[in-house]
């Protein structure tokens, strides 16, 4: 992969990658985005040769390549699993490119888009920038930067090896992608909406409905708490609050648990459940830190403020404008309003509208995935669908809207840049009875931000200026955890390692300090890695095996020898007797019984005699059924005199038996052809000494071929020198003295194997 920016941390990561193929005990966590920053959430993790990536977002404040997480630092083909926590555009945007193959690369530049003529488009910007708005709050980036960020999205397939313009067959990403049902549904909506917009805006289609459908096919769904396993990686997810379908992922690799919270909220609101507290404490918790050490106002106070402002405005005959994003908080606000209206009969004649086509489409998703919401909603659902609002109606365009007296309109975009919310604002701003409630994050540089300081005059979309008389209220409904929630959550979980991501650097630093004082015992490590800065942790997970079946009939005492099949599946080990293999696994064992007939017309006794000369154990008997003479050679091969002219050999295949049988075959052939007699080494009185010398020679030669530098030492020892490390091998006992454990083991094993190769075949049954 061509890496243009091979910075110092990058190279270190590369090295880490190269070792991922082996099963190391190092857990490496690297934020590829959202490290000391907000946006482009993307965390890369590898452990024991398994690679998991969490989220895959773009950074709102940068443009082009720079907006992407640092994918060039990793090898996408190594990723086993991509887990997507929620469906704000930020997080899934890039996914489309991960999972689909685009024909060619295009730079998409918003500059050419007539944004202000397409309200729907503005809406999209609003949506896509949902999470970016945090950035602007915390990093002070302006609206212009944001638009630019979105505008220059790089649509190449960086996962293709080359940049061949037409022929990019497929990205090398081969892993599997998981998200929750609701997230997937919303993801589809957002992308299709984007396609609709780009259809009217640019000629170059970045991707079309087909591409989205293809990527949809690639995405698999997971339900909350459902435990899945991919390549030995077990994972499940918990409710995260934040937005419909948002999930926290718990990943379990070889018994080490990693929790990735994504964006979460521990506060239950009107429709979402609060983030759950996982049942098990994770070993590592990767947690968002967007709000740092700030705390939210209690929800009921915010709600009260919100409804009071609206109620009082309406009672004085005014109109209320709520500029809001299409997804997420909008549904929450509508629920609040609908309920408030229900309880206040005097308001029943005042209409509430929401004017956002996407929000309307999202409503179908909200009406369906009721079971992902909290008990309150689910209980309401028993009587009627709470998202079938009784007092709220959708509004397609301003033409349908009869502006006659008090009304509440929720319109997008939230920043009042254009579209419906802007039109209504222009219309209503000069009447002091009216009010504008800003319920969410107000992006720097937008008109909404401008009116927050309540200037005397505002510039209308038409360019004219008008007095600003309407009331402006800012009541934030955020669904991110604040400091209280974060610290309580961590205190209850007590993870030994905490990694902070998705937070502006200063804010994160403050949070780290404060958390350190909370976990003062010093057993908790809190780490705030920058992008591409790897966090390495060593988990010396003990491998445990379960001995089962016949082998486990009695528990062995210390010093006894245990032999059996070690079967590994995922990260579980079992030791069993070969006979039990088919019982405890889907594997079968087999045996091959061989029966070979050889022409031999000589006397059977001759064979016996010859075999006796070679083999220690030759038993003669007669076959019970046929009464023919048999010889059992080395307890493995049976030689039978089938007829006058044939003998047959029977044996069960295994390397030693095969060898024995081969020699028997050779012997039989020799005997029958009456060729020069096989010269049996008639007790060639080779002395012990000579034999051991011969063996020494062989051992030495073999060791040299394995280790290179092998010298004779005194007292039958061998000195092995490998790259400056020496090992002393005691030939008699096989003991090795060496400082390097690894080398010691290798030499020992090699010596053991050599010995077993040159020594005679052990007699059967020993």
């Amino acid at each position, binding site marked *: 992969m061509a890496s243009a920016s091979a910075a110092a941390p990058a190279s270190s990561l590369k090295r880490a990658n190269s070792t991922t193929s082996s099963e190391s005990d190092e857990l490496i966590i690297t934020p590829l985005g959202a490290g000391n920053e907000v946006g482009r959430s993307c965390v890369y993790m590898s452990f024991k040769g398994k690679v998991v990536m969490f989220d895959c977002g773009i950074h709102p404040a940068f443009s082009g390549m720079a907006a992407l997480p640092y994918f060039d630092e990793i090898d996408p083909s190594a990723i086993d699993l991509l887990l997507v926590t929620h469906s704000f555009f930020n997080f899934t945007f890039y996914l489309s490119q991960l999972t689909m193959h685009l024909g060619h690369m295009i730079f998409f530049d918003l500059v050419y888009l007539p944004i202000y003529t397409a309200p729907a488009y503005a809406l999209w910007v609003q949506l896509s920038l949902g999470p970016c708005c945090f950035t602007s709050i915390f990093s002070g980036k302006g609206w212009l930067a944001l638009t630019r960020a979105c505008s220059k999205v790089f649509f190449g397939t960086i996962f293709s090896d080359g940049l061949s313009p037409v022929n990019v067959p497929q990205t090398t990403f081969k892993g599997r992608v998981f998200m929750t*049902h609701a997230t997937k*549904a919303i993801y589809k*909506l957002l992308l299709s909406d984007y396609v609709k917009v780009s259809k009217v805006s640019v000629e170059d289609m970045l991707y079309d409905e087909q591409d989205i*459908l293809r990527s*949809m096919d690639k995405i698999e*769904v997971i339900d909350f708490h*459902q*435990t*899945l396993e991919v390549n030995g990686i077990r994972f499940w997810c918990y409710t995260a609050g934040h937005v419909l379908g948002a999930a926290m992922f718990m990943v379990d690799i070889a018994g080490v648990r990693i929790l990735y919270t994504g964006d979460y909220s521990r506060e239950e609101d009107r429709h979402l459940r609060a983030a759950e507290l996982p049942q098990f404490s994770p070993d590592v918790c990767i947690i968002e830190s967007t709000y740092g050490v700030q705390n939210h106002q209690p929800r009921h106070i915010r709600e009260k403020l919100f409804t009071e402002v609206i109620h009082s405005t309406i009672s004085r005959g005014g109109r209320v404008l709520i500029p809001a994003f299409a997804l997420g908080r909008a549904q929450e606000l509508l629920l609040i309003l609908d309920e408030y209206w229900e309880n206040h009969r005097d308001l029943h004649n005042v209409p509430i509208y929401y004017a956002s086509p996407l929000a309307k489409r999202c409503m*179908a998703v909200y009406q*369906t*995935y009721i*079971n992902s919401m909290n*008990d309150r909603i689910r*209980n309401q*659902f*028993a*009587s009627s669908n709470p998202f079938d609002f009784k007092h709220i109606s959708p509004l397609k365009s301003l033409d349908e809207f009869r502006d006659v007296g008090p009304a509440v309109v929720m319109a997008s975009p939230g920043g009042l840049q254009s579209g419906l919310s802007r039109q209504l604002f222009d219309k209503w701003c000069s009447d002091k009875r009216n009010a504008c409630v800003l319920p969410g994050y107000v992006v720097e540089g937008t008109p909404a931000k401008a009116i927050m300081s309540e200037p005397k005059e505002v510039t209308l979309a038409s360019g004219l200026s008008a007095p600003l008389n309407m009331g402006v209220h800012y009541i934030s409904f955020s669904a991110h955890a604040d400091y209280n929630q974060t610290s309580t959550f961590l205190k209850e979980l007590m993870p030994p390692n905490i990694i902070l991501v998705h937070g502006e650097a200063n804010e994160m630093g403050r949070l780290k300090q404060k958390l350190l004082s909370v976990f003062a015992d010093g057993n908790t490590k809190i780490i705030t890695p920058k992008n591409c800065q790897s966090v390495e942790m060593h988990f010396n997970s003990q*491998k445990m*095996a*379960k*001995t*089962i*079946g016949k082998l*486990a*009939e*009695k528990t062995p005492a*210390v010093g006894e*020898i*245990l*032999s059996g*099949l*070690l*079967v*590994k*599946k*995922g990260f579980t080990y079992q*030791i069993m007797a*070969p006979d039990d293999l*088919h019982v405890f*696994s*889907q*594997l*079968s064992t*087999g*045996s*091959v*019984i*061989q*029966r*070979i*007939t050889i*022409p031999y017309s000589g006397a059977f006794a001759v064979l016996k005699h010859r075999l006796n000369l070679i083999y220690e154990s030759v038993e003669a008997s007669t076959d019970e059924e046929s009464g023919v003479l048999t010889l059992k050679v080395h307890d493995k091969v049976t030689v039978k005199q089938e007829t006058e002219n044939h003998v047959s050999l029977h044996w069960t*295949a295994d390397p*030693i038996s095969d060898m024995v049988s081969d020699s028997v075959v050779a012997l039989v*052939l020799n005997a029958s052809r009456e060729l020069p007699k096989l010269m049996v080494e008639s007790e060639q009185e080779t002395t012990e000494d000579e034999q051991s010398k011969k063996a020494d020679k062989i051992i030495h030669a073999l060791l040299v071929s394995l280790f290179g530098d092998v010298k004779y030492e005194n007292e039958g020892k061998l000195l092995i020198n490998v790259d400056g490390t020496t090992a002393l091998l005691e030939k008699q006992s096989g003991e090795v003295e060496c400082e390097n454990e690894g080398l010691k*083991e290798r030499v020992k094993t090699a010596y*053991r194997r050599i*010995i077993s190769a040159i020594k005679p075949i*052990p007699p059967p049954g020993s």
Partner: protein
Amino acid sequence: MGTSVQVKPLCGVYNENPLSYLVSIDGFNFLVDCGWNDQFDTSLLEPLSRKGFRVASSVDAVLLSHPDTLHLGALPYAMKQFGISAPVFATEPVYRLGLLTMYDHYLSRKVKFDLGNLLSLSAFDLDVDSVFSHCMQVSEFDLFTLDDIDSAFQNIIRLTYSQNYYVSGKGEGIVIAPLAAGHLLGGTFWKITKDGEDVIYAVDFNHRKEKLLLNGTVLESFVRPAVLITDAYNALLSNQPPRRQKDQQLLDAILKTLRADGNILVPVDTAGRVLELLLILEQYWEHHHLTYPIFFLTYVSSSTVDYAKSFLEWMSDKIAKSFEDSRDNAFLLKHVTLLISKSELEKVPDGPKIVLASMASLEVGFSHDIFVDWAADSKNLVLFTERGQFGTLARVLQSDPPPKAVKVTMSKRIPLVGEELAAYEEEQNRKRKEEALKATLIKEEESRATLGAEQAVGDPMIIDAKIKQPSSNGAALQHGAFKDVFIDGFVSPPSSAGPMFPFYENTFEWDDFGEVINPDDYTRNDEDMDQASMQVGEFNGKLDEASASLFLDATPSKVVSSEQTVYVKCSLVYMDFEGRSDGGSIKKILSHVSPLKLVLVHGSAEATEHLKEHCLKNVCPYVFAPQIEESIDVTSDLCAYKVQLSEKLMSNVLFKKLGDFEVAWVDAEVGKAENGTLSLLPLSTHPPPHKTVLVGDIKMADFKQFLASQGIQVEFAGGALRCGEHVTLRKVGDSSQKGGGNIQHIILEGPLSEEYYKIRDHLYSQFYAL
């Protein structure tokens, strides 16, 4: 020794009775399923209630597998009467749809007037005859109440598929997980794991992916469980025709009748298979632009469909995909009209129509009434989509040849008039006073049926349905559906903690002449009547509430039963749309899953025996088919202990990869680790020799192809594979151990030749030698 496992059937073995079994794992007792039949025959529950054995009180957890009567029907009754207080586990759809099923059952027996009819009477007059004609099938039913249903269901712990639930307390170490079983929405087979040993309870599964509703079961991916408990219900059912063909047959039969101007009654369950049927019909109507009306008639039809809409996660990939693509929920039914009362159906203009009505057994409910109405017309068709429960009307009608006439009991609830009414009023007044008194004394009143069970048919019966609006946090009961329904003039006792049915004890004073009466009470109280009619008016606006009719019990009434003979002239068709695996598939799945021990339940004696024999031969040597209340021990005779694998040992182990598994041979010395566990260390001495193990599964057909591709002439001859000129290859399988994995013996025979060794090499290449 392994985990101790006992299975004790309480109901539903060697017959097709409802399912209920006690599975005890290391002393922790699971009651798996708690079913009842449509007649609610209390004798079936005897094993559960038997005092001496203390079965009910020993239950530690209840697992439910399907949302129908046969699997969970007895839950409310058992929890109330036998005092089962253990936590209940089910999936969300099983919980919801099960609840609706029970509501429907209750209402089918209990509802007094047909709501629609009552409202259609513009002036509330007490013309007995006119009311009589609009009355419905009811019975004196007092086994459980809506409150019992609610309280049984409200504490169900809902799990999602493959969610591992770690049991705490007594059952520490046990993990339960529901897994997709097919058959019904949310249908579950349960995996209970302890110490790595799986006990799987899988009944009524369906391996087939359905046309619309459900994905097939994932049972096949769980091989070699220690114990598998499964049913033999369909063991004798021969292979089913392809689904497409079956669908076509169904639709052909329907269209034939409709075109001949006949009506079709499809007796269905409340919230189970009917969902699939609705989708099939809906889709067919859509594709063929049919205009014949389809009606779905149960007391809870609209709730059922509403809930179905919110269960997309549980349905097939196809439905999920279509929702993603078009955001059209599959259960936005365009061609199906949902009805909750029969009068609504009667208002429909005459003409061919298809009605899906509960219950499937035809014993009670709308289907019963409609059957009685329609049976006599030969144009009509009654289409059974599932086998009727044993001893029900549906089963009788499914017999071959179908009966010419059947006797049915028509029970009607009629309002009280004259003397009876007055007696009732008096009783009421007195009780109201009593109750006011009691209310101050008794803080917590047990909620119970208002009906005196022992009273003979014809006695004044009272139903006072009072549902308090659920508290706004909704925590109390799942009663939201009915919160808008104003019930009657009675005020619930201030002491009652939650919404529940008040209990009035029917005590009568007797003297020598019978019951003591007060003549003054026998005057008509017109005022009350007016009030009642007003209340009825109130309902008009809220009729859209599916279940509003439940509580229209304001007027006193009684039940009158009569026996009637119905001549069955309409055609009767039975088609299997049960969504269960057929016999052949069951056998195939079983031999694939190949449990170490197999327990067979639920199925006729014949089917059970048949499957048992088959499994003994082909699946595993331990097949049990226990009798009712016979406790069998299926503890696995498996031994196990844990050892630590030392790094030193592992660094020398060379794994060979075989599919999901990696296998190696180890020789190790047992040592002790620091923490006292056994650990395995590398041998310091020479490893003892061992018999070589050949690992691998060889299929003769595959091997034949392989040899052919290697340029060797091969053919099958007399059960052996003849390779080349002289070499033969024969597989001597262990025939009692099919599937899963086993020890295969392959015999290679031939004369000494080059070919022999070549073929041997090819054969070896199919194995891993360890």
